């Protein structure tokens, strides 16, 4: 924690105008710098629940229902009205106390038509459905959380694995990696990445750059990944810019192989060294 505080402090110091104006000449040729795009399709639906979460939430909601106050039906339905009659008819009434009957679970304790030792199940009376019902009052049927792309396992589709974050990776020189672009013609990391993406995958894409500052740096020496702290001559640098796809699609004109994959699938595709260097960028959700 202390080292982090110190780093931030140093960073604040170094960005002050006094120090930034000191140097101007680039120390490294621009040709050795590339801008890499980490393009995310954020989850469309909420994450899948683990078995523990499912059972725990179920248990908690059962406890809550058991401890819930009795539903005050006389407040919502006027006495003697038709809607009240319909509501009462829909309820499964509790077993009431009868003289001369043995109740194994104890004599029923009923107040306001509710067995006080159990949860109350309030059933809303449903009107019968028919064809003529409008969009407004028809029953709500939720869409499936799995899509056709899931069934086909179409890794090029943006509609696959809706509950996960998907990342765009492309095949370059026979190996899968995040798309990276040269910054020679611009002096701007994030714009180089965005325009590079459009030149590769067409203009029909709407993205949002999370930040101008790079999220990570990947360094290569003689085509091999080295630790991000390495300094020295002959290094190729890739600065990772984070971005999100909002709409549109990535449709390369050239026969570029690409895929929208989640974290685990990326681990399968890319080389182990590459995944180790970038794994913290990929969300587990």
């Amino acid at each position, binding site marked *: 924690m202390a080292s982090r505080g110190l780093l931030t402090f140093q960073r604040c110091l170094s960005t002050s105008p006094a120090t930034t104006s000191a140097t*101007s000449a680039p*120390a490294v040729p621009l040709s050795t710098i590339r801008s890499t795009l980490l393009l995310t399709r954020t989850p469309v639906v*909420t994450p899948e629940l683990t078995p523990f979460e499912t059972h725990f939430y179920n248990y908690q909601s059962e406890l809550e229902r058991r401890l819930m106050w009795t539903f005050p039906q006389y407040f919502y339905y006027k006495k003697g009205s038709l809607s009240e009659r319909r509501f009462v008819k829909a309820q499964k009434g509790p077993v009431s106390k009868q003289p001369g009957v043995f109740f194994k679970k104890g004599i029923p304790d009923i107040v306001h038509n509710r067995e006080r030792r159990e949860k109350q199940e309030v059933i809303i009376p449903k009107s019968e459905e028919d064809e003529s019902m409008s969009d407004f009052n028809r029953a709500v049927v939720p869409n499936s959380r799995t899509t056709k792309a899931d069934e086909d396992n179409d890794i090029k589709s943006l509609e696959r694995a809706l509950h996960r974050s998907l990342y765009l990776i492309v095949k370059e020189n026979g190996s899968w990696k995040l798309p990276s672009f040269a910054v020679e013609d611009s002096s701007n990391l994030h714009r180089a990445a965005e325009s590079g993406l459009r030149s590769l995958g067409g203009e029909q894409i709407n993205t949002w750059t999370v930040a101008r500052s790079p999220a990570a740096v990947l360094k290569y020496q003689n085509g091999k990944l080295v630790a991000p702290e390495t*300094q020295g001559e002959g290094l190729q640098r890739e600065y990772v810019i984070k971005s999100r796809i909002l709409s549109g699609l990535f449709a390369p004109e050239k026969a570029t192989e690409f895929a929208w994959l989640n974290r685990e699938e990326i681990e399968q595709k890319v080389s182990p060294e590459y995944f180790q260097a970038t794994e913290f960028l990929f969300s587990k959700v």
Partner: protein
Amino acid sequence: MLTQTTQGSLKQPTLQLLRGLRTKSKNSRVATVSAATQRIITGLSVLSGRKKYPRILKLSNEDLIRHDTIQAAWAQYQRDIRTDRQSVLDKQYDSIINAMEDLKITNMELFKIANKKEKGKRFPLDARIPVDFPPNKVWHYEVKAPAEKK
């Protein structure tokens, strides 16, 4: 109901049957109130728990320990999630710092642009948050405005 009526002053009063006439409750202890007052009473009784409390939940010794075990497991589960998330955030933060420090050495121009504050930056309006079930149209493929960024 029998009611006495007088049709003329000279005639004897006769008894006439009237149906549907509202009468006072025989039970004098039950106070009759106006409809407006009754509405207020009903409204207040909705807020009162006197007749709505369920019986107190009594757990046996075994179930109490079982309940505590579930709660302990859940607390541990949440703690694990929190520490995992925090460690990833730490890594990402360190990575940003490292990348920026490196960029400063490599190219001052790029560094200055990358380090510039983006004033007034907001999440885009067409960004969506995760929901329980997908919308009818899962993904919008057509991009209306050209992705022109300043």
